[in-house]
């Protein structure tokens, strides 16, 4: 049974309440270091590891900015030894889920990090966020934006759509986090919902001595409505992507703009390889090989191995894909990578009844097997 508490919202200033909560975590919760998005300068929000609560004034977990998936950073903070003090991180649900995947891959450690997650309202692409934030007090902008969104109004400026990944995301709440801050469906309640989901979360919450409350019924409906909308968008996206990649030549066309920069994989939170195999000597081809291939195909598209790269990456990580969209965000040539990966991931994850980030105890499908399964693969013969 999750412990449910509340934190008051003064004058509709959501961000202030969130900041106050984070402050409490550091002051009363004994958190020595808190990773949270922070305004670095005009139009730039980046995660920062805060040790001095004063710095939290710049913290802005509400900002519709998502320059990178912080799962990798959380992994770095927890891997290979104790950090030497209690750490907490404010992660978006997709960051939380990616981090869980990384923990399974021995890249991070859940033991040493308390995770706080806000209801995710989504974010703009990097370029759009710069447009959004241009000439405004950034915290004010975030606050207004979130307030309007939660009130069911189009946020200002209305003509900027959120990133597609966010619009297709059916995980606005990170249920696996230690503590979640509920924003959605809280209109008129005058407070944010603070919930602990784990023993560690409860212990932490207990220290903060926040008043208890109950889940408002409106929240459930609001979440369902939000998810329904996003799911519809997602399914439409799947449909379009499938149609655009219905054959291998179509897939090649879809990926035609790929220059082999591997930014997508660098931005991907679950592509955990220290160095991608496509950057190693395995793909250092000899000159005569190129000519050989070209002869076989009459014309060889350069650079080579781009389709192979994306297909291999699908094989490697589609099962762990959390759909955060950083790949598309990172692509210099606007290849719709996220759409492709989410579409394929939906299939592969369903095939193995696997949901990335659902639980750290759920093994990655390709690391395990059973003697009797998938008989259809070999025509029912075993």
């Amino acid at each position, binding site marked *: 049974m999750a412990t449910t508490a509340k934190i008051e919202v003064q004058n509709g200033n959501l961000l202030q309440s969130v900041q106050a909560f984070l402050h409490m975590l550091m002051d009363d919760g004994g958190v020595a270091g808190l990773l949270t998005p922070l305004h670095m300068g005009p139009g730039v929000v980046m995660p920062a590891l805060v040790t001095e609560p004063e710095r939290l004034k710049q913290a802005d977990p509400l900002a519709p900015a998502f320059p990178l998936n912080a799962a990798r950073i959380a992994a770095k903070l927890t891997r290979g030894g104790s950090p030497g003090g209690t750490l907490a991180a404010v992660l978006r649900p997709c960051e939380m889920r990616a981090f869980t995947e990384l923990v399974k891959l021995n890249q991070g450690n859940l033991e040493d990090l308390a995770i706080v997650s806000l209801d995710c309202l989504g974010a703009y692409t990097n370029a759009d966020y710069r447009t959004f934030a241009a000439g405004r007090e950034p915290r004010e902008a975030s606050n207004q934006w979130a307030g309007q969104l939660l009130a069911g109004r189009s946020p200002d400026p209305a003509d900027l759509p959120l990133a597609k990944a966010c619009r297709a995301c059916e995980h606005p709440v990170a249920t696996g986090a230690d503590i979640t801050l509920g924003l959605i469906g809280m209109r008129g309640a005058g407070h944010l919902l603070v919930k602990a989901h784990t023993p560690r979360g409860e212990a932490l919450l207990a220290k903060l001595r926040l008043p208890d409350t109950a889940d408002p019924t409106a929240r459930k409906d609001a979440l369902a409505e939000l998810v329904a909308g996003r799911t519809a968008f997602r399914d439409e996206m799947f449909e379009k992507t499938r149609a655009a990649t219905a054959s291998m030549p179509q897939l090649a066309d879809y990926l035609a703009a790929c220059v082999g920069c591997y930014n997508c994989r660098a931005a991907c939170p679950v592509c955990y390889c220290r160095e991608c195999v496509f950057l190693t000597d395995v793909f250092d081809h000899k000159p005569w090989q190129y000519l050989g291939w070209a002869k*076989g195909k009459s014309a060889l598209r350069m650079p080579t191995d781009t389709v192979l790269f994306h297909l291999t990456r699908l094989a490697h990580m589609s099962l762990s894909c959390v759909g955060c969209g950083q790949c598309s965000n990172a692509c210099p040539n606007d290849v719709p990578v996220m759409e492709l990966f989410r579409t394929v991931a939906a299939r592969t994850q369903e095939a193995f009844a696997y949901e990335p980030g659902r639980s750290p105890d759920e093994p990655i499908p390709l690391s395990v097997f059973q003697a009797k399964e998938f008989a259809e693969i070999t025509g029912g013969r075993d």
Partner: protein
Amino acid sequence: MPATEHTQPAPDQSAAVAAMPDFEPTIVAFVCNWCTYTAADLAGTARMVQSPNVRLVRMMCTGMVDPKYVLKALLSGADAVLVSGCHPGDCHYINGNYKARRRIKLLKEILTGFGVDERRLKLTWVGASEGNEFAETVNHMVAEVRELGPSDARTMMAI
């Protein structure tokens, strides 16, 4: 070769078939060293008629068939890929074939999404003594893929 009637042409059966009336498929077979490679050898030495369309790539175990090998073969012009190893319970390396089965399952999910006919990627269990089984598997697969026509990845400029 006489044209074969199809009530429902397979999705990737394009104009290429018409352009290549004498189409002969090329199949890359990743076979495990212990069972299927031995069976293939037996099929050969026992003079079982075996299609010349198959290129055997010897692996130590089906459990080591990296997805990128299968993808590479398909992108480089193979019309189909066969992965074949020991029967369940008989893997020389205890359980490599089970791992392979999951990997092929994953690849099938990915590839069929891109219109690759499921018959172009096959996993079979062929024991060391089953030379006939191997010959049959291969011959059947060649016939099947001949029906399907050439892989449309052949015509792609991109790898």
